[in-house]
């Protein structure tokens, strides 16, 4: 960008310089018309975002080896009746008894070892999620604290492993069923039934090429924690005995030493950790009761931490088998409130109309979309973007993605709560056949999932927007940033007329690079951003305080830090020409770099952030200048600037969004803290983005607005 500018200056003054090259001239044209270009690009970027549901493609199975649904199901009624017997045994145990959990675990282990599979218990302690601001840049295992917790918070997973008869045990497929051993829940028992039915079938079949692991995850401390700790122990062997010893001592205290327990079934139950090969895929199976449904539905949850998604092929296989083989209705999450927005419907109508007109002009152009489809797509897309942007996994499958295993959560909800055994069996049969089909497909895989997309947004279970499409909108949105930065830089660093003075020309003047002072300012504010984002770590250590108190302490400390920084770095001199342009130019560059980085880390965050930050940065101009030349244009600009900078302040934006969705009635200052706490507890990069990119850039925009020029 600076290149172009210099060429321009050079072309103007010395006569012997050759004409700049075409690409340079193109750059000069773009920079000199940066206002027009930025308006066009930003508009196009926002329009492209709303066109995404229209541009979504139908999913297709990309990996040929998967061959979903090509084999007929082998699941029989015998498996299901066995599974139902297990479920009855589990539910019949008295839930009030203190050792019901142990008894249920024993029943399950007995059933599993009767199948002739390897059974093991996995003991774990639930850890509180901790603040690891740099977790993203390190490996999954580093930064884990294996500190000793209290004995009260342990759980035991039951793990069954089927060794594939024909294979070398290098690969495995994981089934996970969350189950709370201490509580009696009919839906969890149903999920155990489905899991057991599939597992008992798989223990007999001859076509297995990968080991099957069934993890019945103890969900009393949350579904995620148990799966995550099992995965951690699976992948990261502990050589020091301290951690397991601690857990053992807890068990001994409770008189349930599992290792010395007599074996109830055919095979030995070991308390040692059992492993199979690397995981090809993982399926988390849950059954929920949702009232008022028209048919049996299957909800697919795929978002893992930091907006990572499993390979699209996994979702495709599930979707294909569920829809075409088992006749389930497949859903992905969507924002229901979007469906009630009037303007989305109007937009959908308009696009529908345009599509029809285009279709009548040339039948080849088939980009029309019906209005309900468009609105549904938008609602799903919005939810997809939001979930990815939050960076919090939507289920236990998120733990797998940290170890590069593709995993999804399948949440099956029956139409009604079945009382009739026949209907119930049919439901189990359909669900189990779905799982069996998916396992059989994944079993066919020769390599890990790689064929299809990892970066995509879903607009419906069978439609997706790939990275190549959604990046266009984002690129258009941020494209004006470098252009405007360059043009501002050119304006600010034009050769001063005084230097034309012949007397001055004779001197060698040691002028430094002018933009350095602005760079210093930008750097200081970003350093402040780092300080602000690290503060919660210390604030959260304060005992016995409410989230509201936390947020107030945080806010006041941050403001205080900013004031101190401002006083330290305040330059005593009078403002000079080109100073705010330089500052704005550097701010825009910082925003550009930050958004670019974030788009690589977590696209959804960058997209949402760009919608706020790009206009805020591009429009920012000292209020003083605008007030001086009072006209309608400047008045509009002042109003927009004030509005945007209010909305862009993270807490303000949060409460406005919350108010729009849930009403402004009951607002609590602590809610913002709680929300951010959830972000950093899950190691979301969004937290770092807010603290180190968004907030500093917002402060810099304010500085530009309040600049005394």
């Amino acid at each position: 960008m600076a290149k172009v500018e210099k060429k321009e200056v050079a072309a103007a003054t010395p006569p012997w310089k050759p004409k700049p090259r075409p690409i340079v001239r193109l750059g000069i044209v773009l920079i000199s018309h940066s206002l027009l270009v930025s308006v066009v690009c930003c508009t196009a970027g926002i329009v492209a975002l709303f066109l995404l549901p229209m541009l979504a493609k139908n999913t297709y199975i990309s990996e040929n080896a998967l061959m979903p649904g090509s084999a007929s199901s082998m699941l029989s009624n015998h498996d299901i009746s066995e599974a139902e017997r297990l479920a009855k045994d589990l539910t019949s145990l008295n839930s009030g008894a203190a050792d019901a959990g142990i008894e249920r675990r024993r029943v399950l282990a007995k059933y599993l070892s009767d199948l002739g599979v390897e059974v093991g218990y996995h003991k774990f302690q639930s850890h509180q999620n901790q603040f690891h601001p740099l977790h993203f840049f390190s490996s999954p295992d580093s930064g884990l604290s294996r500190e000793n917790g209290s004995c009260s918070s342990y759980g035991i997973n039951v793990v069954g492993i089927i060794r594939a008869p024909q294979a070398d045990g290098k690969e495995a497929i994981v089934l996970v069923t969350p189950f709370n051993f201490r509580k009696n829940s009919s839906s969890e028992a149903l999920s155990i039934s489905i899991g057991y039915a599939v597992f008992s079938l798989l223990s007999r079949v001859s076509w297995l090429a990968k080991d099957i692991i069934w993890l019945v995850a103890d969900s009393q401390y949350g579904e995620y924690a148990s799966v995550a700790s099992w995965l951690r122990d699976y992948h990261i062997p502990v050589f020091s005995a301290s951690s397991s010893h601690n857990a053992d001592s807890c068990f001994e205290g409770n008189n349930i030493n599992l290792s010395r327990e007599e074996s109830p079934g055919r095979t030995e139950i070991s308390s040692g950790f059992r492993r199979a090969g690397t995981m090809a895929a993982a399926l988390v199976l849950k059954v929920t009761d949702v009232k008022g449904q028209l048919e049996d539905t299957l909800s697919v949850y795929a978002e893992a931490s930091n907006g990572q998604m499993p390979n699209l092929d996994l979702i495709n296989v599930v979707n294909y088998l569920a829809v075409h083989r088992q006749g389930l209705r497949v859903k992905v999450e969507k924002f229901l409130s979007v469906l009630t927005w009037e303007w989305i419907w109007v937009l959908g109508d308009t696009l529908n109309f345009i599509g029809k007109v285009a279709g009548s002009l040339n039948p080849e152009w088939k980009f029309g979309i019906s209005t309900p489809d468009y609105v549904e797509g938008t609602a799903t897309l919005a939810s997809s973007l939001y979930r990815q942007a939050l960076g919090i996994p939507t289920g236990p499958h998120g733990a797998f993605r940290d170890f590069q295993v593709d995993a999804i959560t399948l949440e099956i909800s029956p139409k009604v709560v079945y009382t009739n055994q026949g209907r119930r069996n049919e439901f189990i049969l359909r669900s189990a056949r779905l799982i069996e089909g998916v396992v059989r497909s994944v079993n066919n895989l020769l390599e890990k999932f790689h064929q299809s997309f990892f970066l995509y947004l879903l607009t419906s279970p069978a439609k997706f927007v790939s990275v190549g499409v959604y990046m266009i909108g984002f690129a258009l949105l941020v494209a004006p940033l470098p252009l405007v930065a360059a043009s501002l830089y050119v304006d600010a660093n034009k050769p001063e007329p005084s230097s034309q003075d012949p007397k001055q020309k004779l001197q060698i003047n040691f002028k430094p690079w002018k933009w350095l002072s602005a760079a210093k300012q930008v750097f200081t504010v970003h350093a402040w951003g780092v300080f602000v984002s690290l503060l919660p770590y210390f604030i959260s250590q304060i005992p016995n305080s409410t989230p509201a108190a936390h947020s107030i302490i945080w806010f006041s400390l941050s403001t205080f830090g900013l004031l101190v920084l401002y006083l330290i770095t305040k330059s005593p001199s009078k403002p000079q020409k080109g100073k705010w342009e330089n500052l704005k130019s550097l701010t825009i560059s910082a925003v550009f770099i930050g958004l670019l980085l974030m788009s690589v880390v977590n696209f959804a965050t960058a997209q949402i952030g760009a919608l706020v930050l790009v206009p805020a940065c591009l429009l920012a101009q000292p209020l003083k200048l605008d007030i001086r030349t009072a006209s309608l244009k400047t008045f509009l600009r002042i109003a927009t600037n004030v509005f945007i900078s209010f909305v862009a302040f993270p807490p303000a934006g949060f409460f406005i969004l919350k108010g729009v969705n849930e009403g402004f009635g009951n607002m609590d200052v602590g809610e913002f803290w709680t929300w951010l706490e959830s972000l950093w507890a899950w190691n979301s990069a969004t937290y770092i983005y807010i603290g180190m990119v968004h907030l500093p850039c917002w402060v810099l925009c304010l500085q530009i607005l309040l600049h005394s020029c």
Partner: protein
Amino acid sequence: MPTANTEEENSKSELQKNHGGGGGFTRWAVVAVIFRLALIYFPGNLNLSSRPEVSTPLTSIRRLAEGYWLKQSSMSPYAGSMYHGSPLLLSVLGPLTVKRIEGQPSHILCSLVFVLADLISSILIRATGRKLQIAYRKSLKSLNLLNKSTDSGALSSGDIAALVYLWNPFTIVACVGLSTSPVENLFTILTLYGAATGLAPLAAFGWVMATHLSLYPAILIIPVNLSYSGSWFYPPAPLSPEYTYAPPSKLFRSKEHGKVGDGKSSQEIIFSWRRVFHLLVWTSLWSVYVLVLCSISVKQHGSLQEMFQRTYGFILTVEDLSPNIGVLWYFFAEVFDFFRDFFLIVFHSNILFMILPLAIRLKHRPCFLAFVYIAISSMLKSYPSVGDSALYLGLLGLFLDELADMQFSFFLFCGYVGVSLLSPVMHNLWIWRGTGNANFYYATAMAYACFQIVLVVESVSSMLNHDRKLTKLSTSKLQK
């Protein structure tokens, strides 16, 4: 000029703090050292020493510790393919890698050595900068180009360069990340310092050690010779007014006819072959000394030939293709084996091709020539790390006065910041998340190489422009 002067003061207030003697520099240097110590003490979970940007197969302290362990168990330190550094470094740093102090992070002694190396480097840069600036001012004065007010208000470029070196995030990361590049950089800087102050033994020692440690500083022999045997800066004075594009050598000759030069400076122009010989004698002395030390060190378990094969041979044949911030690993991972030798020659001669033209064009500015060589070799070397960039970025500060009109400074600054942030993210995407691939990471490496090229090209051209401007100014002065 006074207005320009105040402007300068405002806009560089952070640099202003060092202005006014050594107090500012000392303060900031102490803060830099404390900052490093704090980072060493709280290593966090960044795991810097295993980052590909920081530690290469040549500079990794973990490999050094492994080599030391092999040596201690009576094996050649070069057995296997773990260690590829100097045996001398092994003897000095090796014992420090195994010493543990209770309650302190591991490798703390090594870290302290690296911090010390950084500090000494910055002090040497500062001293070199002083020398350069004095020469520069003197020549400007002799041309009557120096403004009095500028003279009083100007910042010492040596101080700035030293602080840039100390506070450069690259230097800090290389130092805290336990790579041996601070030591390598120290010897390179020592070479330049020796050459600048005219101490032939020191310059020769630095050059021999730097070459021994990392091979690429070998090309610095040309600038060292030029600076030791010629003079540091030749004030250009033209023969005729229309004279604008003449190469500097003509300027020197013309200087004797010019009215501005005094007798003393005209004597400096003569390139003294006697001094070249002097330097070469010292160089060979030190080389023999280092070789003897090395052979004593490796005698028990290997030979000097093995040492050369495993150090220089490893550098030249690019055996290790693990990803780094350079451009060679990806290329040699992709290239067919029967083309490999050909491309090895092509890539290495790339550096050699540039030596002679640059030496001819920039021979009147040996220190700048050294900077250009270092930048080029750190761009094209087989295992580059951020420590190499730290070195040339620090040296860039020495020429702040001359490069004030440099183009693209803003663009380059943003580019360096962007790439150095993007590169770890791409690496994470490729290695840990599995959603990216090697191309993502390599793209940042290429972008980085491009920025380095732009930096070198622009700095050279603005330096030449500066010389032209001096010529023009002295012409117009003479005409009056």
